[in-house]
């Protein structure tokens, strides 16, 4: 019984397993040192994860894979162009760009949502075509309106004739690495102020609303926050935090320490103070796993990677923050509504949920997040290809999500991150493997592109296949058994009846 369960699990994960094998084989074939692959990989995780995570909300809202994130990316690029033209630099420039991109993305997301509501059931093809359509408008804006209609006098950005923006914009002196290089010290400092502000505000709000305030808890939180902040004034800690990149080794050690402390503290809290039953086995297993991971860091090959790779802290924090946001959102009422709409629009409607509005909200979220994701991508790459940076955004993000084991109807943070790791490993090594195996890097490159299209085609086909096997898409409110008894013809009768 148990064995069969494991087999089922393995079968569920077939896409992931296939890609793990593929990645391992291509890494071997490429003959590249692991340190190189790991370093490239962590750069690409920082660059792309945000965009991939931006896809999750529409999937849960039942709108499928959002090819419309291209439009969010365009909003970001318009903002980048404007701030570059106005000459804002550094993290301030980056934040201003984000601030500028957000209302645009909200507006675009609203329009996309409106459109998708008119093409329910074919959001994906509609989103894809919409991406191309928007690309036309985008080119119109950058090639003719900038300079042609809106006078922009900037020989560094504009083509010599003064009409149209140059092909590439160098962000080296403006926002390149602006987010990646925020020092940890600043992050801790800002974090401290945010925590303090949050505690004070919540207490104030409760006072105004005449609710009882838990003074003891607030005070303890304040003291803890203060203590953490105070620690940063110790010279050794201060010098450690002054850097903007974190060595992967330290990141792993830090993470293991946090896991251990958290598990033990939780255990003690529940067992000793609250006297509740706790799953000792689980706690123990996690602790042992953490220690094992720590032991692995002593393996020379692993150690070599760990002391080679440096992580941009702020970027990774942003990605972690988005994961958290996705999780928290799904626990709110809005998130629950999205989930209900995703499962069945009919049921959602019957439950009094405004289906169209929920779908539009999901699209706005996704589009705004995509625009921020594109900003993170651009600040890391450092050169902005005016007419090319957005074209493959949807394609690669969606392929990555699917490689991680997600489907048209189900996607999680874990799948997104895993997908980014696998897809981008292939991204890095496939051309090199092609060169080693066939003496032609292009073959590897083409193979990679083929994989990215192929995996999407496969996922879409499997989704459609399942939908047909489940006896038509429109039998949501009919009991499934009735469809099964009626056989194929009654099934398609149901789907045919509501066609068009």
């Amino acid at each position, binding site marked *: 019984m148990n064995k069969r369960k494991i087999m089922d699990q393995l079968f569920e994960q077939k896409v992931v397993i296939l890609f793990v094998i593929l990645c391992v084989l291509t890494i071997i074939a490429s003959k590249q040192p692991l340190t190189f692959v790991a370093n490239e990989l962590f750069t690409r995780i920082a660059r792309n994860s945000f965009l991939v995570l931006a896809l999750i909300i529409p999937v849960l809202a039942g709108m499928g894979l959002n090819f419309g994130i291209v439009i969010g990316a365009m909003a970001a690029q318009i903002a980048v162009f404007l701030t570059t033209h106005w000459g804002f630099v550094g993290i301030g420039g980056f934040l201003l760009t984000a601030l500028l991109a957000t209302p645009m993305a909200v507006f675009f997301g609203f329009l996309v949502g409106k459109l998708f509501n008119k093409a329910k059931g074919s959001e994906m093809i509609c989103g894809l075509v919409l991406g191309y359509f928007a690309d036309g*408008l985008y080119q119109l804006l950058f090639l003719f309106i900038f300079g042609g209609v809106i006078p922009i006098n900037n020989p560094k950005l504009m083509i010599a004739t003064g009409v149209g923006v140059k092909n590439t914009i160098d962000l080296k002196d403006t926002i390149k690495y602006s987010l990646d290089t925020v020092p940890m010290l600043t992050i801790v400092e800002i974090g401290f102020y945010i925590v303090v502000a949050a505690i004070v505000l919540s207490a104030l709000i409760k006072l105004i609303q005449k609710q009882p305030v838990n003074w003891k808890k607030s005070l303890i939180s304040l003291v803890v926050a203060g203590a953490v902040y105070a620690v940063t004034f110790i010279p050794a800690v201060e010098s450690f935090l002054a850097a903007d990149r974190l060595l992967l080794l330290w990141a792993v050690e830090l993470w293991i320490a946090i896991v251990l402390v958290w598990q033990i503290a939780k255990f003690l809290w529940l067992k000793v103070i609250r006297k509740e039953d706790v799953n000792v086995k689980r706690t123990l297993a996690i602790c042992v796993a953490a220690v094992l991971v720590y032991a692995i860091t002593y393996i020379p090959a692993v150690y070599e990677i760990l002391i080679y790779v440096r992580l941009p802290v702020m970027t990774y924090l942003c990605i972690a923050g988005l994961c958290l946001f996705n999780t928290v959102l799904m626990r709110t009422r809005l998130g629950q509504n999205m989930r209900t709409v995703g499962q069945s629009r009919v049921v959602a409607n019957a439950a009094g949920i405004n289906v169209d509005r929920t779908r539009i909200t999901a699209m706005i979220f996704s589009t705004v997040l995509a625009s921020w994701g594109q900003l993170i991508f651009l600040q890391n790459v450092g050169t902005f290809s005016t007419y090319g940076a957005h074209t493959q955004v949807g394609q690669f993000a969606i392929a990555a999500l699917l490689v991680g084991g997600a489907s048209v109807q189900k996607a999680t943070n874990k799948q997104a991150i895993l997908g980014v790791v696998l897809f981008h490993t292939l991204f890095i090594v496939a051309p090199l493997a092609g060169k080693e195996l066939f003496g032609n890097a292009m073959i590897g490159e083409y193979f990679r592109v083929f994989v990215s299209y192929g995996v999407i085609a496969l996922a879409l086909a499997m989704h459609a296949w399942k939908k047909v096997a489940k006896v038509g898409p429109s039998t949501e409110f009919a009991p499934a058994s009735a469809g099964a008894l009626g056989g194929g013809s009654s099934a398609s009768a149901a789907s045919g009846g509501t066609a068009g």
Partner: protein
Amino acid sequence: MRDNAKVLVRQVGLPRIIIAGFFLLLLVAAGGFQMDLLQLCSDFLRRWGMYGVLVLAMVPAVQCGIGLNFGISMGIVGGLLGGLIVVEFRLANIPALVAVHPLLAQWVGILIAILIGVVLAAGIGWLYALLLNRVKGSEMTVTTYVGFSIIAFMNILWTILPFQSGELIYPNAGQGLRNTISLADSYSGVMNNTFAITIGSLTIPTGLLLFFFLMCLLVWLFMRSKTGEAMSAAGANPNFARANGINVNRMRLVGTILSTVLAAVGILVYAQGFGFMQLYNGPMMMGFTSVAAVLIGGASPRKARISHVLIGTFLFQSIMALALPVANQFIPESNLSEVMRLIISNGIIIYALTQTGGGDRE
């Protein structure tokens, strides 16, 4: 009067009126710039014939019920392979035939290419149809990505296929087939030049148009045949068709294969008119262009007729032919026409998707 106008708008469709109006506007602008209208007209005719068969491939697909076939690249690669084989073995330059008439040799060449293309496309189309029969209701989404995938897959093949001819492969020990293959020494312009009539600056590519019309006629005849009628019935209302003893899946199979085969023929007609064969990502968006053209002609994801193909291709391609010179008058050396192509072709597809709720039945 007002009601009449409303009825007219509803019958012809707002986007078609806009696009036709845009075409007239461009035409007037071209006249205003004192361009050679006759030469532009020859351009219209040439492009009409060149793209026509590719657009025609939409008719059986839509009629058999799989909707707009974004995946005609499945057939296109078949046609390209046929064309490559003809160039490789110099089948368009068989000396005995060249001695009779060069055009005859070229015709033999392109017909062999079409024959090979059709055979390959029929095989690919059959597999493709089997897939599509399993994804009923989401064909368009699937066809788009399957179409992209085959292009990406063929990219690998184009690099490793063992072609030898110097016209095909990259010079200087490069690997793989060229991106753009010149047909100047094989069958370039064979249809365009057959019985071509030149009056002043107006050139009528009679052979090309005749071939296009012949293809239209064949499809039209097929649609009037018993199988064709059954196919349309299966596409329009599968349950009704099934109740009448029509094998719906088989009809979809026939329609998909026919569409794929027409795409293979279409790309060769296009290539001979263009003078080049484009490999790699060249044909990637051809599906979109063809879909847009047939939609402009008045088709919907549920219904497409030969007249839609004729009108749509003419309007769309004429706008494209006009846009470049007119746009250049405003902004020299710009690719405004390319931008316009993106906006028009994708705009009309989105419009069609929102009108019918798409091909995905919900």
